[in-house]
Each structure stands twice: as C-alpha cells, then as structure tokens.
C-alpha cells in the first residue's frame, strides 16, 4: 500500500522542481508556472496529511486546499496581468531586462 511518505516525497520533489525552475528561467511566465507548481505541491501535502491524519472527518485539509486553489487562481490572474503590463512597457518578458524602477 502507498504510505504517507511516498506522497510527501513526491510533493517535496515537485516543490523543488518548481523552485529550481522559478530561480533559473528568465521568462516571467515560466517563473509564474514554477510558483504554481510549488503551490500545487503544498496542496498535495494538505490533502495527504488530511487523508492520513487522525481526524479526517474535520475536513481541514480539504478546506485549506480548496481555499489555496482559489487564492492561486487570483494570483495567476494578477500575475499574468502584471506580466502583460510589463511587456507593454519594456517590450520583453525577460526578467533580467526589467531592472529599472522608473521607466
């Protein structure tokens, strides 16, 4: 049977992939994708801990995952709008080109 450990390791690896991607890629959209992957890894942890935890009838983990999905949707919308606004201004979505605060 699958233990809690396998879910936690999977989520740790997913988190690290997202982190490494967000740290290395130049394109702002890919950084956002990396952040989404990290959020998803956290969601997997919430669900796994809820399912294996001592009080699954309390539904806390499920609720946290649901709210985090909602927040992630809001974050993606605002983040992509910011990227598009930056692109309009600098004509690029490369993060190392966006270095000045005053355009």
């Amino acid at each position, binding site marked *: *049977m*699958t*233990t*809690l*450990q396998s879910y*936690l390791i*999977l989520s*740790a*690896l997913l*988190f*690290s*992939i*997202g982190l*490494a*991607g*967000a*740290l*290395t*890629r*130049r*394109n702002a*959209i*890919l950084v956002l*994708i*990396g952040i*989404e*992957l990290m959020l*998803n890894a956290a*969601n*997997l942890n919430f*669900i796994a801990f809820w*399912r*294996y935890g001592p009080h*699954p*009838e309390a*539904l806390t983990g*499920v609720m946290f*995952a*649901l*709210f985090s*999905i*909602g*927040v*992630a*949707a*809001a974050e*993606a*919308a*605002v983040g*992509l*709008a910011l990227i*598009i*606004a930056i*692109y*309009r201004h600098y*004509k*690029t*979505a*490369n993060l*190392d080109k966006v270095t000045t605060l005053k355009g």
Partner: protein
Amino acid sequence: MHTGFLLLALLTLASAGAAMCLRNLVHCALCVAISFVSLAALFLTLDAEFVGFAQILVYVGAVAILIVIAILLTRDISGHGQSLVFKPWTLGVGVGALVAGSLVSAVTSSAFTHRELPPAPAATVRQLGESLMTTYVVPLEIIGLLLTAALLGAVLLARRENEGGGRS
C-alpha cells in the same frame, strides 16, 4: 493501487520537469497542464473527489488557459538567440537540489510518515458545503472578496495606459 500511484507520480514529476526545461513556451504550458491533471488524479486516489475536480476546473480550465494567452500576448521579439536561463543556472538548480535533499531526508527520517492508509472517511459534498457555510464562512467571504479584487486589479493592470475615448 501502488503501481497506479507510481505511474501518476512519475507523470507528475516528468511533466513538471519538462515544463521547467523545454525551450518552447507553449510546450511548457501544455506540460504544466498535464502535471495539473495528474495531480488531480492523485487527489482522487486520496478520496478528495471534490478538490480533484476543482483542481481540473480551476487549473486546466482557467490557469492553463490564462498562461497560454499570456504567452501568445508577450511574444518576445528581441529575445531570440539569448539564453533561456540566468547565467549561473547551477545556482538555481543547486538551491532546488538542496531543498529537495533536506525535505526528503526530513520526510524519511520521521516516524509519523510511515502511516498506512486509514479507512476512507465519509467526506460527502454535503458535509463540505455545510462546513463551508458554517465553520468556514468567513474565509469563504474573504476568498470572494479577494477574487473580486483580483478581477478588478487584473482588468486595470492589463488595460492600456493611454486609454482615452474609444479602444485603440
């Protein structure tokens, strides 16, 4: 059961890795969509039916679509021939590997994590809805407020700055 989990885990990790490594941005977005779907399937293996469906509805139906539209809108004209990653790319990957190593060692050394799967809890949609409307009603309202604010903010941000009378 276990082979199913292994297959899904492999699919998730492979598509997430591909999303972070591929050159073509649209391929990255489609790979991350695959990763979202396999995560939803993992939620289903954990008897979190509602979260799994919500994950597909929100991430595949909205976030992935937003990402591909943003990719098409920010087609980089000047970016050809440049490196796709920041120059000392080993630094970022190193930090990622370090985090992975420490997290995995922490997880494997904990006694708590060797737990077997308890019998499935009876988490019906009705229970979920009732607790959303009683215990979690304040967070629910705040999420609604947040989403409205995000909607307005996104519209304002993405609007052209010099918008006068009609749309250009």
